């Protein structure tokens, strides 16, 4: 580990701490006794300050210090926490985030624009500090004399005697005791440092990256014990640390007489030089004996701390992607091996190919599982969005999160954030009514927004629901006619009307707000979700609320496929969507059949894709299910299950309907993967309620 790694760790940890700070701030409002949250937020800010100090990132230290001071007052009940302070602290958290990101990019955070940006925040924080100090002066008359800054708490700087015995790994872990001393100098005045170099061995025995030093430090500071201890936070595990409050007189340090004679003995007096080898050879071993129990102790403590973390490791996302790519290649290779084995008519070979195939399937599943993440983290990010937007709109809105343990592919999670944000904003802005309207309608004053996620036949469904007024059918239709999106005499079902809000350039907001209503967004949302092979549906009840459900495939890389043959072409259906296969008996011209007494509409793939080739005498219907709707696909032959590595179609085929991707078969041929949702939409009115496909036009084939 070198310093760069340590800086990376600092940045990753800071991001986590900032997220912690944010969630603490957000849950503060709801908590009856927010002291736990306040402490958590304070600790997060404190740790960020402490570690940026170690790295000498002064910009972050200076800014975070002000934040920390305010939080400290909040902790002591000198400043009451309220809505506006929470918003201010959230903004401060964001600013620290910006500083951290800048540090991640450039290694420091000196940026004129950012400094200017911090100014209003610092001023606002300053007002709280001033108010807090006044308040403190009222409640504690004895401290009335000291009316500003931290000095109020401890009028006289305290003398601290710090003795630090560095463990071997300190330097290797990227920590330099020197920078800690520099940091201490910022807390107060470092009046004396004695470095004990007794432990340093001869050059030949020296591990240049191990630390052999011990320090006695005398610090004059009005910061509390916590602040002083905080300076050592990063090396504490590897060190023996003793911090004592000294008297007013500088106490003699035990290291001083030790340290200086050792150098002097070796270098000053000629007779000392003669004795030096003996004393030097003994001292490292003594030091080692003394250090051993301490190291064992700190090692045990470290293990204890880490046992909680040992269940998970961080992996570079690129490595995972590479693994998935390789597994994809493996699947294709295994398919062609199996094909070759079948051709060779060698039973033994076929058997081992089958075993191999089974194993590869398991490898694929666990590889894909590695990329699965819970959606909870994404959902929790919306607490902040909801908080900010609600403030901006002057509405009171509570967020309810359900199904946060639902897992989905990391790449999907990353791409779903923006569309979801837009849906959430839209629901808050257009869905949930202002408080007075809500009260007049007999609803609770607080609006409620629910985020929910669950698995449903090979896809994940994410629902954004609000308890607002629902979509206004007539207004949407009027607007669509006005915009020329539909003819004025069109007869549309409710669901078709709701679907219009995803049309480009459509916006019904009576006034343009900062958040939504600019007519961009919902169509972009739909486009983004379609790009992920997903779909959007709307369910709205006037006066009760609306639910927008986004349906996405679980993974974008590899699926279990079901191969069918039409004419000379092979197509692949996602196996999860296939319900059953039935023989097609009726030779009629109707596009529906009788499935155990129920009407089953079906699509003739041959006609749909205008395919040539020999017609099968015994065609089959594959019954597929999508979004609660069942329909059939008429095919010539069934080929069975096969693992399918999805290769995206090139942009040239972006407009092709009914196919979502392609794959390479074991034989080297290319097969198209059918897009069930799109096929269903192509079939027109048979499409399920409110389901929107890649193209809004109700095409027929």
């Amino acid at each position, binding site marked *: 580990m*070198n*310093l760069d790694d340590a800086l990376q760790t600092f940045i990753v940890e800071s991001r986590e701490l900032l997220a912690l700070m944010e969630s603490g701030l957000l849950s503060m409002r709801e908590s009856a006794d927010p002291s736990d949250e306040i402490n958590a937020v304070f600790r997060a800010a404190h740790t960020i300050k402490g570690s940026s100090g170690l790295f000498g990132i002064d910009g972050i230290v200076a800014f975070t210090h002000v934040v920390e001071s305010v939080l400290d007052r909040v902790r002591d009940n000198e400043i009451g926490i309220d809505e506006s302070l929470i918003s201010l602290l959230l903004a401060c958290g964001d600013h620290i985030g910006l500083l951290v990101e800048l540090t991640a990019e450039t290694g420091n955070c000196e940026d004129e624009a950012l400094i200017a940006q911090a100014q209003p925040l610092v001023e606002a924080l300053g007002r709280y500090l001033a108010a807090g100090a006044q308040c403190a002066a009222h409640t504690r008359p004895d401290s009335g004399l000291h009316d500003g800054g931290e000095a109020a708490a401890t009028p006289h700087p305290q003398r601290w005697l710090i003795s630090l015995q560095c463990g071997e790994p300190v*330097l290797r872990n990227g920590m*330099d*005791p*020197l920078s800690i*001393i520099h940091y201490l100098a910022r807390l107060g005045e*470092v009046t*004396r*440092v*004695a*470095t004990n*170099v007794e432990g*340093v*061995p*001869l*050059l*030949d025995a*020296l591990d*240049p*990256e191990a*630390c*052999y*030093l011990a*320090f006695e430090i005398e610090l004059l500071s009005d910061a509390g014990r916590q602040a002083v201890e905080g300076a050592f936070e990063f090396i504490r595990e590897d060190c023996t640390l003793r911090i004592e409050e000294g008297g007013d007189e500088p106490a003699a340090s035990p290291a001083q007489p030790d*340290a*200086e004679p050792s*150098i*002097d003995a*070796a*270098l*000053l007096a*000629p007779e000392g*030089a003669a004795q*030096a*080898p003996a004393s*030097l050879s003994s001292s490292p071993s003594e030091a080692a004996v003394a250090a051993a129990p301490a190291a064992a102790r700190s090692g045990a403590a470290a293990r204890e701390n880490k046992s909680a973390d040992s269940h998970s490791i961080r992996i570079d996302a690129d490595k995972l992607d590479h693994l998935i790519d390789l597994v994809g290649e493996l699947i294709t290779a295994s398919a062609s091996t199996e094909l070759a084995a079948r051709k060779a008519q060698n039973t033994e070979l076929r058997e081992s190919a089958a075993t191999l195939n089974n194993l590869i399937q398991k490898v694929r599943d666990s590889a894909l599982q590695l990329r699965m993440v819970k959606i909870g983290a994404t959902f929790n990010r919306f607490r902040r969005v909801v908080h900010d937007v609600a403030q901006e709109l002057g509405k009171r809105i509570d967020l309810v999160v359900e199904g946060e343990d639902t897992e989905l592919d990391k790449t999907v999670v990353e791409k779903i954030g923006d569309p979801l944000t837009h849906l959430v904003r839209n629901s808050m802005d257009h869905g949930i009514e202002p408080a007075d309207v809500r009260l007049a309608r007999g609803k609770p004053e607080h609006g409620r927004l629910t985020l929910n996620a669950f698995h449903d036949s090979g896809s994940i469904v994410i629902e954004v629901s609000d308890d607002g007024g629902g979509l206004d059918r007539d207004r949407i239709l009027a607007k669509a006619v006005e915009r020329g999106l539909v003819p004025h005499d069109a007869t549309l079902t409710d669901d078709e009307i709701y679907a219009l809000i995803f049309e480009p350039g459509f916006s019904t907001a009576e006034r343009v707000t900062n958040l939504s209503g600019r007519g961009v967004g919902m169509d972009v949302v739909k486009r983004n979700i379609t790009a992920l092979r997903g779909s959007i549906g709307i369910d709205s009840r006037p006066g009760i609320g609306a639910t927008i459900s986004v349906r996405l495939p679980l993974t974008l890389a590899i699926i279990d496929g079901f191969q069918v043959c039409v004419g000379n072409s092979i197509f692949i259906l996602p196996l999860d969507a296939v319900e059953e296969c039935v023989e097609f008996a009726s030779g009629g011209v109707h596009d529906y059949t009788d499935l155990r007494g129920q009407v089953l509409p079906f699509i003739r793939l041959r006609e749909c894709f205008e395919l040539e080739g020999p017609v099968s005498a015994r065609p089959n219907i594959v019954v597929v299910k999508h979004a609660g709707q069942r329909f059939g696909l008429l095919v010539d032959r069934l080929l069975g299950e096969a693992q399918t590595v999805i290769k995206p179609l090139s942009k040239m085929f972006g407009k092709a309907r009914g196919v979502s991707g392609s794959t390479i078969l074991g034989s080297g041929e290319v097969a198209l993967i059918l897009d069930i949702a799109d096929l269903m939409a192509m079939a027109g009115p048979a499409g399920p309620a409110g389901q929107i496909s890649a193209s809004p036009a109700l095409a027929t084939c």
Partner: protein
Amino acid sequence: MNAPLTVQIELPLTIYHAAELKELMSDALERGAGVRFDVSAVPEIDCAGVQLLVAARRSAADRRQACDFVGASETVQATLALLGVPQLLTQAQPLGETLAALEETVS
């Protein structure tokens, strides 16, 4: 006895270069005639660097050689002063020579 060797150190005396510098110092001391390290071009020093200076001087003393560090920049001087080990620089030269002189008289 040969004249002391002068070795120019241009790398920062920090953990990044500690391994490299250790080799350089060991090699210089191997020559057996005492070394004068010219550290005037050393921009900075950290705790790993301080350890190197101490170890080099201990090793030199062990071999009864001289080992000096001369021409330290203000930054390096300030750091060593802060850590309370300025004698690594200030007292080194005359003493190293004393030691060398002593060495010569003995042999």
